[in-house]
């Protein structure tokens, strides 16, 4: 098949005149393909590469936890592997205690499993997408949006459960002049609702941009290798080093995004439970009421 002077063969474009196969679109890596076609009634519930990828992550996390807690729990003095898993586990309670104020330890512990699961999922899923020939689940807006929306709804429910209708005072910060109140309520409402979108978009955009740039640069290097020119061949080292550096950067971004999304969940939860009041203000109110 010929298109604009280029020969297209099985989706890959071949440059006439000795050039090797040019890469497909860098966005092709995000395609979802069914592995097992399944239809239940009207619903299409196929097992796709996305499902496989998530299942692999789940399997990896469960295996890790199982290995370090087999025979009724880990050892008192951990080995390096158990120590690593313990460090990951310990990270979340520290974060929850630091970020969420004005709550007792027991209440914080109620939020811990949800935050911990989100963190573990992001921590294992994001870097796993960097492995070649694998699939990056968090580069799909639907997945990240589902995560962020479910967390947002949960946090709003927690807010209403804790404060009742007084939760609406969250929309009006203290000390605001009355004429400004309607505008501020509107602004606060929009900013509150957009939290759900923003945390989803942040994760999706970071993952997608990073993976695309790695793919584009590696495609560039791959094309240079097949141009039958010694200068291009030697010059290929440049993009190769950039891809190497980008791989490191992307791994860092993948891990830091897990951290960032967990911190933002904690901050939203803190806002919902303390309603625009910081801890010192909370303590001040407490001492005043006592005196």
């Amino acid at each position, binding site marked *: 098949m010929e298109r604009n002077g280029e020969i297209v063969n099985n989706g890959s474009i071949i440059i006439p005149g000795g050039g090797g196969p040019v890469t497909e679109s860098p966005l092709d890596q995000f395609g979802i393909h069914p592995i097992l076609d399944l239809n239940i009634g009207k619903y299409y519930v196929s097992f796709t590469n996305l499902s496989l990828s998530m299942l692999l992550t789940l399997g990896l996390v469960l295996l890790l936890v199982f290995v370090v807690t087999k025979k009724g729990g880990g050892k008192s003095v951990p080995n390096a592997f158990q120590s690593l898993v313990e460090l990951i586990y310990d990270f979340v309670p520290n974060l929850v205690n630091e970020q969420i104020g004005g709550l007792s330890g027991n209440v914080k512990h109620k939020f811990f499993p949800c935050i911990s699961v989100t963190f573990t999922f992001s921590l294992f899923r994001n870097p796993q997408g960097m492995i070649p020939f694998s699939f990056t689940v968090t580069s799909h807006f639907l997945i990240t949006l589902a995560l962020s929306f479910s967390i947002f709804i949960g946090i709003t429910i927690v807010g209403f459960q804790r404060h009742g209708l007084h939760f609406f005072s969250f929309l009006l910060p203290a*000390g605001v002049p009355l004429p400004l109140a309607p505008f501020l309520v509107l602004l606060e409402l929009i900013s509150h609702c957009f939290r759900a979108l923003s945390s989803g978009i942040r994760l999706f955009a970071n993952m997608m941009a990073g993976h695309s740039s790695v793919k584009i640069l*590696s495609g560039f290097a791959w094309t240079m290798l097949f141009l039958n020119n010694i200068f291009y061949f030697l010059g290929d080292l440049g993009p190769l080093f950039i891809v190497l550096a980008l791989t490191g950067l992307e791994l860092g971004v993948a891990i830091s995004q897990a951290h960032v999304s967990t911190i933002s969940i904690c901050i939203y939860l803190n806002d919902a439970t303390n309603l625009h009041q910081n801890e010192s203000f909370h303590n001040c109110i407490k001492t005043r009421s006592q005196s």
Partner: protein
Amino acid sequence: MRFSGMDMKGINMLFAAIPSICASSPKKISIYNEEMIVARCFIGFLILSWKSLGKTFKETLDGRIESIQESLQQFFNPNEVILEESNEQQRLLNLWISLRICSTVKVVESLPAARCAPKCEKTVQALLCRNLNVKSATLLNATSSRRIRLQDDIVTGFHFSVSERLVSGSTTLVEASTVEQIREAFLLEPRDLIREGFIVLRKVRVGGIPGTCGDGVGL
């Protein structure tokens, strides 16, 4: 020609890699596209980071394991640990006492007429007086530095307590100047300072500060 263990391992891997590549290529198991570059860069980065950071990472984990081990040991055998510590302290005390004795004897012996005790009495007295003077000077210095630190602590403490109370409401210029006045008032001698502090606090509680246009600070 003889190969070392590492060379043999490398050669074996090479011989294993060639047939596996030959077998996987026609079956389209290994696809030759830009993903190969990504894969190589990924593996290269992992190897590089393992070589550069692996040791630090291992040391961190080992440090954690050791600290857990030590705390467990202390938890299970507190008596042993305390006994060991007390023994160590006793040993150090004995050593110190013996050193003191030795040094005194040495000083006395090192004097020009050490053996004629009545003659060197004045020299020993002078030496002891000098030591006493040095120690008293050190003590004076320590006392004055302690006093300055105490003064600083009191100023900071009062400043924080007053600002906390003022900031909890709304902060105005008058209140800010009040805080400044209180701070200035604290730059006095400790005795006066404490007195001033109590006066200021009492006034703040009552609702008036001298020199603030009569504005009360409602608490």
